[in-house]
């Protein structure tokens, strides 16, 4: 008789009981959860207070700034007497009234707060007017009489480098440079089977954050308190103190809710000016706000780069050499230009293995707006070039452009432009994920009429996060419990929409086993928080995230120690989760963390920990630009854009968009998704429409009518793919998101246009006029209707 194994008796118990948890369904860790924004409620109800919202609730007096009428001139005299006669005006201040160095600038202190004797661009500030009403301040500003001796306007890189160009600074018009020398590029190019060359020109871009610069300041005789939106309150405090001649302890900078930054708030705006007005009127709260035109005329911009790129390869597509020469329009002052140049050079060959590299980058002063930080920071302009070159090379070789990328992308253990070896390179994985989604998804394509052409383009980039190049880069954070059982995170870092508050709160909550609802963040107030470095360079998740995790981890030791005495087990045998300390082994027993906190306070413990995260990067060799550790870690990203180009109107429509980012670990996936889609929208703007038009040093489109921004119609729903190859040094393995979404988007769109038209774009933005020029290289000028559809006013009939 065949025997069948008896079914296990129903009474049989498994050897190990599933732990009866205190909750039916254990909640997920706060890290990796799309928790609602901590500042979301006040933002959807309109209660959040941005800098301009302190008007006129708090203002006693109103200030405004007189800007230069000339792009380049000697200032002969500033007659403030007519302004003082205007009813309501209580003070007019020029450079002689500034008590300190009267200089600002993040790297070189070359930018006068109020000009002494020479204006170098049309946004230069000459005077601050203070009045009892905003309209009186404006009337006073218009009444100031300024006499200039105009000087020739240096309106472009070519003007600046011309033999008889006027010297903008004593050392001439070249601000600085950076070089990379790796192997022998000239020889490798001579020996290459295939060589492609191109000159790219990227445009000047405005940050166009919606929340126009504003601020209030008050001097009570002891402390100058300034509420204004920046990106690095501690550095702002330092610069304000220097410019105004105050000890640093006497300046306090507090960041209000901030409506976008994108690098545009890294340089000081009106902080010193409103601070000066406050010093002159003790005990009064001074308010100052720009309008959109002043915001666009005064603020720094993204560098326009001219990039000469030569790329050599073997017949099988293996890259052998790159020779890159870049000229950057620095505008009137250095701003963060020297750092932008460095980042541009260190990303010159992107995520590709190129054994022989020769890069020269020069920054050139002009009388245009100063150029400085903007999302992408030099790396995005270079990505336009190297990704454009890969597609050109693929065409010349007759190779598949995806295959050519796969062949040359760095693998783990390979080195990038700076010579830095990448321990975990995931560019191929990103590219494959994007291509897989593209080929196996999406709606069926609508057939197109003959005058509309479809194409797709792909880009793969890498990005070194943090300041890099040996520049001191650190973040400090505090984590503490309050007596009412809240978990507080203290950081000097700035939230301007990117999701920093949730990032730090979720990391601290995860480390301490607290629900995110019990976490709150005190941020960006030099009077209450520690220096955390700037919210820029895609660095806050990695740097401040790590500092918070360290502090939380140390605080956790204290809580576990108290828990041990309550649960009568060794602290190592306790885990903290969902607000409870739970024994790890045996019958689970638990005690609420709030009880442990209360007990801790009763015993006199502080339950407050501060921590520093300061990893080392190494300064490069100045001759070769090579560094074993130029950046703390690299991000890998791949994007794909599918576009339709109307060859009659030149209009480009982005039909479909796929973006894959290896973020290490998404602390808040919804935030990560939002950063990616938002960066893509800005990339589409840079690729297709946004352009600051300068004419003889005057910004011709300092308004949102002529400076075209992407709308609902221009951005398809971005399909995001988030990879999580954890970074060994990142908090919970996270790297960050930040700038790469924009960097990868621009070349993806341009390569799609290349695919659709068979002609490769080399100038951004690729607006209708440029598309027309690509298609009609022999004709000098497009027809009027296309010129008119194209935004820049200089092109209009």
């Amino acid at each position: 008789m065949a025997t069948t194994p008896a079914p296990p008796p129903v009474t049989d118990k498994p050897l190990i009981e599933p732990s009866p948890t205190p909750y039916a369904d254990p909640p997920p860790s706060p890290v990796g959860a799309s928790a609602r924004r901590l500042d979301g409620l006040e933002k959807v109800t309109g209660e959040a207070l941005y800098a301009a919202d302190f008007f006129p609730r708090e203002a006693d007096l109103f200030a405004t700034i007189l800007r230069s009428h000339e792009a380049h001139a000697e200032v002969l005299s500033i007659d403030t007497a007519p302004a003082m006669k205007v009813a309501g005006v209580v003070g007019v201040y020029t450079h002689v009234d500034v008590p300190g160095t009267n200089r600002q600038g993040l790297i070189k202190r070359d930018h006068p707060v109020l000009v002494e004797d020479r204006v170098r661009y049309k946004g230069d500030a000459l005077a601050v007017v203070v009045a009892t009403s905003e309209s009186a301040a404006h009337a006073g500003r218009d009444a100031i009489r300024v006499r200039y001796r105009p000087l020739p306007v240096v309106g472009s890189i070519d003007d600046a480098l011309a033999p008889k160009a006027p010297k903008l600074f004593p050392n001439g018009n070249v601000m600085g440079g950076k070089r990379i020398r790796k192997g022998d590029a000239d020889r490798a190019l001579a020996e290459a089977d295939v060589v492609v060359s191109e000159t790219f020109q990227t445009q000047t871009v405005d940050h166009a954050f919606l929340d126009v610069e504003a601020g209030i300041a008050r001097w009570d005789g002891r402390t100058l308190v300034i509420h204004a939106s920046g990106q690095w309150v501690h550095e702002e405090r330092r610069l304000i103190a220097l410019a105004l001649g105050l000890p640093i302890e006497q300046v306090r900078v507090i960041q209000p809710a901030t409506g976008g930054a994108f690098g545009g708030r890294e340089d000081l705006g009106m902080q010193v000016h409103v601070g000066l007005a406050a010093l002159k009127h003790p005990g009064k709260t001074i308010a100052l706000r720009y309008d959109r035109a002043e915001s666009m005329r005064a603020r720094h911009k993204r560098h326009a780069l001219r990039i000469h790129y030569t790329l050599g390869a073997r017949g099988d597509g293996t890259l052998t050499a790159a020779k890159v020469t870049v000229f950057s329009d620095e505008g009137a002052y250095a701003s963060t230009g020297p750092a932008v140049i460095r980042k541009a050079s260190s990303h010159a060959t992107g995520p590709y293995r190129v054994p022989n590299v020769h890069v020269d980058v020069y920054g050139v002063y002009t009388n245009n707006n100063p150029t400085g930080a903007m999302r992408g920071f030099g790396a995005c302009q270079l990505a336009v070039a190297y990704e454009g070159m890969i597609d050109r090379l693929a065409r010349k070789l007759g190779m598949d452009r995806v295959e050519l990328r796969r062949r040359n992308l760095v693998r783990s253990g390979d080195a990038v432009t700076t010579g830095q070896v990448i321990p975990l390179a995931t560019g191929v994985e990103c590219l494959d994920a994007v291509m897989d989604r593209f080929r196996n998804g999406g709606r069926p394509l609508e057939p197109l009429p003959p005058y509309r052409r479809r194409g797709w383009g792909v880009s793969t980039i890498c990005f070194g996060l943090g300041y890099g190049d040996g520049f001191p880069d650190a973040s400090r954070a505090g984590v503490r419990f309050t007596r009412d059982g809240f978990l507080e995170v203290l950081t000097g870092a700035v939230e301007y929409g990117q999701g920093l508050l949730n990032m730090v709160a979720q990391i601290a909550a995860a480390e301490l086993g607290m629900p995110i609802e019990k976490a709150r963040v005190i941020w960006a107030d030099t009077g209450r928080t520690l220096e955390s470095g700037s919210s820029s360079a895609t660095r806050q998740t990695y740097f401040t995230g790590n500092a918070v995790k360290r502090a939380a981890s140390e605080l956790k030791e204290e809580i576990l120690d108290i828990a041990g005495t309550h649960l009568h087990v060794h602290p190592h045998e306790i885990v903290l989760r969902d607000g409870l300390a739970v024994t790890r082994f045996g019958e689970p027993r638990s005690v609420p963390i709030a009880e442990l906190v209360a007990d801790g306070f009763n015993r006199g413990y502080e339950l407050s920990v501060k921590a520093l995260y300061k990893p080392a990067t190494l300064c490069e060799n100045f001759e070769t630009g090579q560094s074993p550790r130029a950046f703390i870690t690299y991000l890998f990203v791949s994007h794909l854009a599918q576009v339709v180009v109307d060859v009659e109107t030149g209009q480009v429509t982005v039909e479909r968009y796929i973006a894959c980012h290896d973020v290490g670990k998404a602390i808040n996936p919804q935030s990560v998704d939002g950063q990616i889609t938002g960066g893509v929208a800005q990339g589409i703007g840079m690729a297709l429409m946004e352009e600051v038009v300068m004419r003889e040093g005057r910004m011709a489109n300092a308004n949102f009518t002529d400076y075209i921004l992407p709308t609902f119609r221009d951005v398809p729903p971005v399909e995001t793919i988030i990879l999580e190859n954890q970074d060994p040094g990142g908090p919970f393995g996270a790297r960050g998101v930040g700038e790469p979404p924009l960097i990868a988007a621009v070349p993806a769109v341009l390569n799609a246009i290349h695919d659709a038209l068979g002609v490769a774009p080399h100038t951004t933005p690729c607006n209708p006029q440029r598309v027309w020029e690509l298609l009609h290289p022999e004709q000098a000028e497009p027809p009027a209707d296309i010129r008119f559809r194209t935004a820049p006013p200089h092109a209009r009939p």
Partner: protein
Amino acid sequence: MPENVSEHGGAASPADDSIWHWRCKVNGQIIERDLPASTTLLHALRDHCSLTGTKGACEEGECGSCTVLLDGAPVNSCLVLAAQTQDCQVTTIEAMASGRKLHILQDKFLAAGAAQCGYCTPGLIMAAAALLKQHPDPTPDEFLQGMEGNICRCTGYKAISEAIRQAAQEWPTPPEVP
């Protein structure tokens, strides 16, 4: 004046505005203010009523940040003079929630992560409220026509579209748009 010298400024101050006695029903409450006649609705709300939920950004009707409902219709409050709203009804973001109970659009914006920097959010919510009031189930064309006047610089629009779409699904029994 020597040829190579340029002189600017010294302009006579513009004559003071005449004063307009503005009377308007804002968020259900009758408000009376004496304003310079050139005051826009945006500045009347922000600077004279402390209703700073309505944001100014471009102040020339391009970005929609200042959208409010004027007698139920969405307008760019930067392009409307306060004097043009005499005895009209104006609804701003401050009237959308009742107490701590959020309007459905606010709730969906919050859940979808549609507010990042949040500066465009009040204008978007007002524009979306007007859109859904007119087209409770908007077609893609109606959606774009209703929303294209609002610029968001941070989010890339995906989460916003998603939030409005979700609000539309629950729209048949929405809290009343005031």
